[in-house]
């Protein structure tokens, strides 16, 4: 009996440890339970790279990691999934718009000189661009339900920029832009702007300097106006290249283009005074009339570096925290209701050992939750479903054992002997059942995606633990009870009319 008591003390110690673990390491809840946004990014092959390999995925992740840190969302995580995907989780974030913008772009920054002899064409394009841009800016500032824009009363209102319909149609026709029928003015202007930017970029020479040579990026408010500039600092090599680039076009009518992801975001002229040595010092700024947020996002992107391969956002899931709380509440109620029903069933059908099994199952649940906290497993809704199902498996192990014990008792064996035989006979089918279950879990975990994985993890942990609790906890508790003569009655195990008359 001393051995039983020793084992019992061990189980008790484990239970206390599990409780302590749960107390000190809180359970990690998935975004579907606590609310937040999740973005899945697909890394696309480009150029010479036909398939995305491990190291390229890691390189992309490194850049995105820096952007995550730059964004400053608390507890955000970025993980690689499979061969060519990344999952970004932003707890608490309910509007994934900004994250989608910051993460979905390559942020390839290039400094390019205008080709000689294209001045006239460039002038025309830039005029169109400025006009389109100002109309768009105005309509954007107006739309976000803010009709009461403060206007200084003593100043005559500035003439609103506009784009007369026939001018717009003419410009679109000249540039060969096909606009879908029924498109509104804003859409037409946007299409025009796209085409203009494309044409502007075509007028530049190949890039001599790129974002790779950046040391840092910052932002500052413009001295005149309300826009923001993004400031850049190059390394030595970059500074030299920038000086050479500016020297080449200084004093001419050619422009210096700053191109981000193939879109011209800023065009600057370089004045005569730099013709001797170019702009030295390794610093530059992009005057793009950004809003504070745009400037910050661009700064974060530039500081993080450009992505070695383009990415595409293929999945966005957003769950509001209220829905998350609702999910927790309902699944908790479901789990507790299910457990209570199982407990009642076990006690009614199996009497004393049933009650022991209920204790063992409570320990089992405790161990399960403690391992989630330790490993750590992020609990999601399917994960909770996996946990509840694993309870079913754990109960099955107990049912198998107790049915065997009953059988042995019916055939006239003594109580202690029946218990021992019951455990050893049930073992092989319990093992087989659990192993086949684990095989499914491994297949699901190795080959499944996000949600499916969460389910496989909790079910798998449950199966492993249930092997332990059914075969050790239940057994030790039962044996310990059998050391008290008052509890050693077959009628606590089985209705007495089922007992053979010879049994004690």
């Amino acid at each position, binding site marked *: 009996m001393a051995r039983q008591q020793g084992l019992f003390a061990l189980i008790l110690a484990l239970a206390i440890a599990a409780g302590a673990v749960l107390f000190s390491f809180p359970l990690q809840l998935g975004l579907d339970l606590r609310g937040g946004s999740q973005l899945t990014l697909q890394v696309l092959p480009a150029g010479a790279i036909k398939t995305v390999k491990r190291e390229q995925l890691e390189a992309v992740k490194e850049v995105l990691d820096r952007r995550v840190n730059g964004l400053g969302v608390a507890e955000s995580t970025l993980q690689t999934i499979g061969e060519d995907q990344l999952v970004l989780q932003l707890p608490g974030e309910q509007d994934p718009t900004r994250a989608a913008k910051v993460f979905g772009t390559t942020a390839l920054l290039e400094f390019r000189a205008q080709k000689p002899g294209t001045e006239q064409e460039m002038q025309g394009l830039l005029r169109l661009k400025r006009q389109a841009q100002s109309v768009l800016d105005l309509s954007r500032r107006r739309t976000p339900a803010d009709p009461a824009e403060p206007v200084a009363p003593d100043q005559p209102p500035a003439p609103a920029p506009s784009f007369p319909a026939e001018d717009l149609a003419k410009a679109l026709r000249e540039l060969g832009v096909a606009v879908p029928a029924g498109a509104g003015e804003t859409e037409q202007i946007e299409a025009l702007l796209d085409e203009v930017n494309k044409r502007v970029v075509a007028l530049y020479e190949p890039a001599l300097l790129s974002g790779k040579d950046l040391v840092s990026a910052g932002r500052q408010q413009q001295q005149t106006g309300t826009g923001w500039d993004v400031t850049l600092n190059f390394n030595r090599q970059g500074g030299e290249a920038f000086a050479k680039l500016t020297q080449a076009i200084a004093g001419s009518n050619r422009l210096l283009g700053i191109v981000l992801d193939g879109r011209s975001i800023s065009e600057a002229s370089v004045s005569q005074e730099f013709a001797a040595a170019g702009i030295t010092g390794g610093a530059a700024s992009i005057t793009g009339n950004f809003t504070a947020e745009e400037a910050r996002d661009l700064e974060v992107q530039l500081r993080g570096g450009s992505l070695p391969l383009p990415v595409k956002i293929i999945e966005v899931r957003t769950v509001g925290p209220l*829905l998350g709380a609702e999910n927790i509440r309902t*699944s908790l109620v479901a789990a507790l209701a299910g457990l209570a029903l199982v407990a009642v069933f076990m006690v009614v059908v199996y009497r004393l050992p049933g009650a022991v099994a209920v204790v063992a199952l409570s320990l089992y649940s405790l161990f399960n939750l403690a391992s989630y906290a330790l490993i750590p497993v992020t609990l999601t809704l399917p994960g909770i479903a996996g946990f509840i199902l694993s309870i079913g498996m754990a109960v099955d192990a107990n049912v198998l054992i107790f049915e065997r014990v009953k059988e042995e008792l019916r055939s006239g064996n003594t109580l202690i002997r029946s218990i021992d035989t019951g455990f050893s006979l049930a073992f092989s089918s319990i093992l087989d059942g659990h192993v086949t279950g684990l095989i499914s879990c491994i297949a699901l975990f190795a080959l499944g995606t996000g*949600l499916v994985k969460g389910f496989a993890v909790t079910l798998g942990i449950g199966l492993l633990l249930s092997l332990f609790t059914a075969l050790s906890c239940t057994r030790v508790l039962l044996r310990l009870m059998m050391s008290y003569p008052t509890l050693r009655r077959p009628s606590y195990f089985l209705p007495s009319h089922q007992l053979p008359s010879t049994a004690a």
Partner: protein
Amino acid sequence: MTSSSSGSSALPPIQYFRITRHRRIAWWGSLAACLISLVGIGLSWLNPAIGAPLKPGLDFTGGTRIQLERACYPSCSGITVPQVAEQLESLKLPSEEGAAAPALRGAPVQVLDQGRSIELRLPILSAVQGTALIGQLATSLGPFKDGGTSVDTIGPTLGAQLLRSSLLSLLVSFAAIALYITFRYDKIFAFLAILCLAHDVLITTGLFAWLGLLLGIEVDSLFAVALITVAGYSVNDTVVVFDRIREQKESLGAFPFSDQVDVAVDATLTRSLYTSLTTLLPLLGILFFGGSSLFWFSVALTVGISVGSWSSIGVAPTLLPLLSGKGFVGSAQSDGAAPAGSA
């Protein structure tokens, strides 16, 4: 328990019934269920609106699902599906680079909980467009509860990938389980276990094919999870019976094989039923209290586990004598130990 065993050479008493005597009913029942399932799957495939064995949900087809909770207390002013649809049509979404905003005409709309929440199924929207859509709808149908909104956007490539990985993990776990049982038992046992598993998975799939046809129920990635769980349970259930047959070989080896099967099924019957019951209890918990997100998941599991428990009693053991070439000798002749329970 009326018939007493006449010594160690007699067959142990049968408590409930001899399953091999009812094998024809069992086979025909299962065959009919499988055929009905196949018809459902076939009809669903031929149905031009579905065009697949099951009606694929957003997880597989790709698209955007938006769920909105209206903030109205104590009661919401009633809104109807056509009202929401009308609002949707009048929306103007910002276009993304290089692609116009998708048309929202005819997108499926559901109004749930007496107008308290709205579910929209839309073509793929970008994050910007989704936010814009919610913002614009809020002016006409809102205000919406802060924090009660959920938006899922799934790209079409992800859906295909999910389908592929679900099928692959199902097949791989089939193969691995078959290997394990071959190793622990033998080839015929493994074959029967896989047959039962296919039987259970087929019937569960068939039910959802019919549900898709009749009620428009779609399957999502959780359905794939449910199928794989059903497969695991089915094997677990079957293995327990097989384990008993193997264990009895020493004591009952002299009896006809079908009698051995009868004894094994009879002895494990209580356990099979109790196990299914204790697994179904938590599932019923999810079914009734688990909320809408897990409802069809638990329906699939409930059906699959019930069918699995049936096939491990009625299908696998009754086919075992047939396949092992030992036939049904025992059932043709009457032997000493007559069944007491149900004969």
